[in-house]
């Protein structure tokens, strides 16, 4: 299929084959992402970044991606809520923006915003996170990192740990990983466990996820440990937060049990979830993961804009 003009709204919109196609191209993008090779594949193309919430990383990674491909980015600043407060609808903002650019990258506080934007825009829209909704480029870079590190995702044992309840990105990652044959374990305190709906969805896709509350139980078996942020706001008081955060913190000690080639991932920014001592171990892959955001986003831009190397 040709991706040209396609919106990237939700990972659910794509088949396994399509995701593979994106990841294959991302692989080819790596030398360009590093600056080892130069390309003008998207010369003259303009990307506009419309971020209604601050997100330095995702935004910079898109800007790097378009620049590395010879295109340019228009930054709306962070309109934050100003245009919303002024009463302009997102539908209007998008129709104005599509007149200025070839592709729109949107981060918005409301779920479904990217789907709406895609409906109003003729130009492709890429969802860079909509509220507690989807964040497909994060999901893709996570998949890319695992595929790259492990060669193949079929049968790999992945534990997701931390706040599995509120972050929809973990929900879509769980579904996508299942589609690729990974075996999942969800590790969280009961109040932050994976929602039933996601577990059902994973089962529908043929997965048999395990639900646990302790990391130690599975550590020795794991190929990938995917750590997420536990947010203070989810807890009634600081003491409760600290207790839970402490329980799920990844420390050097706990890794003695792990396979030597087990990798640890984290969407970043991390707060206390992973002890800094872990950074120096060969397990730590979260910074490689962050870099992978660039080639993956380059691949998406190439595909939706029809660029050629």
């Amino acid at each position, binding site marked *: 299929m040709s991706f040209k003009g396609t919106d990237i709204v939700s990972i659910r919109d794509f088949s396994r084959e399509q995701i593979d196609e994106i990841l294959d191209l991302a692989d080819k993008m790596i030398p360009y992402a590093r600056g080892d090779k130069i390309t003008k594949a998207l010369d003259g193309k303009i990307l506009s970044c419309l971020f209604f919430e601050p997100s330095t990383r995702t935004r910079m990674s898109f800007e790097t991606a378009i620049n590395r491909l010879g295109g340019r980015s228009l930054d709306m600043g962070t309109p934050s809520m100003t245009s919303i407060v002024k009463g302009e609808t*997102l539908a209007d903002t998008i129709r104005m923006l599509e007149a200025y650019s070839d592709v729109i990258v949107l981060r918005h506080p409301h779920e*479904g915003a990217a789907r709406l934007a895609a409906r109003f825009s003729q130009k492709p829209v890429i969802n860079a996170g909509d509220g507690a909704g989807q964040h497909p480029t994060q999901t893709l870079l996570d998949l890319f990192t695992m595929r790259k590190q492990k060669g193949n995702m079929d049968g790999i044992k992945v534990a997701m740990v931390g706040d599995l309840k509120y972050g929809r990105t973990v929900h879509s990652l769980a579904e996508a990983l299942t589609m690729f044959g990974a075996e999942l374990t969800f590790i969280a305190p009961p109040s932050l466990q994976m929602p039933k709906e996601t577990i059902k969805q994973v089962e529908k896709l043929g997965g048999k996820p395990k639900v646990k509350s302790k990391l130690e139980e599975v550590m020795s078996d794991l190929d990938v440990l995917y750590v997420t942020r536990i947010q203070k706001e989810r807890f009634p008081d600081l003491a409760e937060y600290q207790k839970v955060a402490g329980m799920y913190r990844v420390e050097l000690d706990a890794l003695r049990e792990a396979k030597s080639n087990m990798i640890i991932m984290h969407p970043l920014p991390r707060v206390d979830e992973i002890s800094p001592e872990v950074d120096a171990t060969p397990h730590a892959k979260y910074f490689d993961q962050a870099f992978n955001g660039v080639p993956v986003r380059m691949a998406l831009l190439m595909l939706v804009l029809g660029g050629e190397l």
Partner: protein
Amino acid sequence: MKEFKVTPIRNGTVIDHIDCGMALKVLRIIGMDGGNVQSPVSILMHVPSKKSGWKDVLKVEDRELDPRQVDKIALIAPRATINIIRDFNVAEKHNVKLPDVVIGKTRCANPNCITNQKEPVEPEFIVEGKNPPILRCVYCDRILENIADNLI
């Protein structure tokens, strides 16, 4: 002989097999709860059903409701039947049928959904199951948990 809880009607429409307790909501859905209704409407609530347990029944005199127009009843009463009565007899019978996409009939229960933010769009749901109805918001991807409370 049938035993009628209300007087038989000569002409009109009987909506039968409404899920118990949903009769008033059905009236609202078909727009017959306002002051501009010109025909007598009778409601039977909580009557025994031969098919299963209890049901509600609605009878509208002198009006033949268009079955296609009232399909949205299936949102809250998926087993309902529309019976067109002519000269005291059931002349036509239709089962309500949910379309594959429901647009502008229910709002999304997720307050943070973009469709609840004054954007120029109607809420839209993919019908993932018909009996019971399972609606998934096209925008925010959530399943609508309480359809009856979110009718527009």
